[in-house]
């Protein structure tokens, strides 16, 4: 079945059962519906989004699985990081609704046509979407929470080891 698709699109073979395909974001729905109708990659298993901040791009991988659940096809789409929006896949796969909700909350991607993008995991969250690279979780934590007294943190390990050795030696000399 994979040869049939190779004729239409240039598909990279990543592993014995893993294939990758790079497409433009505006042809997403059309290609995915073509694939799901003609080939046996009928199920959307996952929408994985990676934030390449240095290339100023989000790369979304729509991972499709065959009817026999033996091969996976990763369809990659790249969109800009600022006003990022994509067409929804609700017409093709009902399970996309939840995945789009998750990505909308975590990355701020707007899925045109999916009007049930209410909050998924965070409640009254007014910071920037947390999984974007520019959101620094350690800074957020230091600003909102205080740590318990006596919990020194991320000190250089070597300095600490040297100090303890000196202390032990001094104790031994003292005795």
């Amino acid at each position, binding site marked *: 079945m994979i040869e049939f698709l190779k004729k239409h699109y240039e598909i990279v073979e990543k592993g014995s059962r*893993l294939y990758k395909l790079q497409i433009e974001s505006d042809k997403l729905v059309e290609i995915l519906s073509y694939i799901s109708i003609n080939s046996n990659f009928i199920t959307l*298993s*996952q929408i*994985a989004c990676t934030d390449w901040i240095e290339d100023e791009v989000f790369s979304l991988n729509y991972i499709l699985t065959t009817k026999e*659940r033996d091969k996976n096809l990763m369809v990659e789409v790249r969109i800009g990081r600022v006003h990022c929006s994509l067409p929804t896949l609700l017409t093709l796969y009902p399970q996309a609704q*939840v995945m789009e909700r998750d990505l909308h909350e975590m990355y701020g991607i707007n899925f045109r046509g999916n009007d049930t993008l209410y909050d998924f995991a965070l409640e009254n969250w007014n910071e920037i979407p947390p999984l974007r690279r520019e959101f620094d979780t350690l800074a957020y934590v230091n600003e909102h929470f205080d740590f318990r007294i006596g919990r020194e943190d991320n000190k250089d390990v070597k300095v600490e080891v040297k100090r303890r050795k000196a202390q032990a030696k001094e104790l031994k000399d003292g005795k």
Partner: protein
Amino acid sequence: MENNDNQLIKIYHGPQHPGITGNMSMELDLLGETIKEARTHVGYLHRGFEKLIERRTIIQAFTIVCRICVPEPDPNEENFARAVEGLAGIEISQRAKYIRVMVLEMARLAAQMLWMGGQSGSIGLGVVGQWSVYDRDLILDLFEELTGGRVYHMYIYPGGVRRELPNGFLEKLAQLLDYLERRLLDYDGIFFENSTFKKRAIGVGVVNRDEALKNGYVGQVLRGCGIERDVRRDNPYLVYDKLDFEIPTYEGCDVYSRALVRRGEMVESIKILRQVIAQMPSEGAIMQKLPKHRKFKLPKEDIFVATESARGEFGYYMAGDGSEFIRRMQVKGPSLIHGFTLLENLLIDEELSNVALIMNSLGICPPEMER
């Protein structure tokens, strides 16, 4: 459906409720005790895994990954290890593969035992929960001996497994398997053949069979509808292609056939474990030589690996970016689809008393839904 003249009453099958598996909540609109609309609420256990992974090296991420799904941590560890090996191009020894399969199958047995406790507890059969959690504890003792931890084992590390088998471990495992096999007959009497459980479970939570594959349902939901799908056989990993085991399927599409499927899987797991004990190669390095964790760089590639957990297919997407930190790791557990699209549809026009029953039978585990 708006509240037509206050006929519908809104309740929460909420976070603090003895009838849910873990810490999630269902917002239900009831007409009398018939559910007219259901909405799943998660986020109570959200720790922002994927954000934390981006700040951690491989060894640091490894300790956090097994905390994603509480009842069954090992498929996460194995998925993470296989994804890192796929990216870094490491090949692990045959012995390490057999040990990994052993750990996975023992974890599956423990998870099915816990499921039995939850499923029977949802309909008031306290006895089964008491017995099955005790038997699960026997498996956890073996895990403790092997890995040092009862529930979170942190044992499967990219490149193999972290510790050699303690001597006499396989004999103990064989004895335990004989005991569990005898024990399954008791469970038949008290639970699977229980007349009131049949009356409560048959014909309840019936999944629509022909859209099951298209909607991406996995695990027992498929096998409960007579569709024979299992990642271990369809997309084999480790040494599953060398082991022979069947995939139990039943035709009912309802809670009862999913229960029988799980019972069949327990028998299969015992069979697999016996083959693993027999075929375990005695020599072979259990751990490949790996660079120091600060220098363990991952190439700028992405990969998708899947493994079969006790509740269905666990999918890991991982992307490296050349540094020692993982650029992105996205986890998709079986409950993400079962908990939202499937559960919310199954509960329409269902009785309130079947909510806990259906939720348990779909094996919904909230931490993997919102990570």
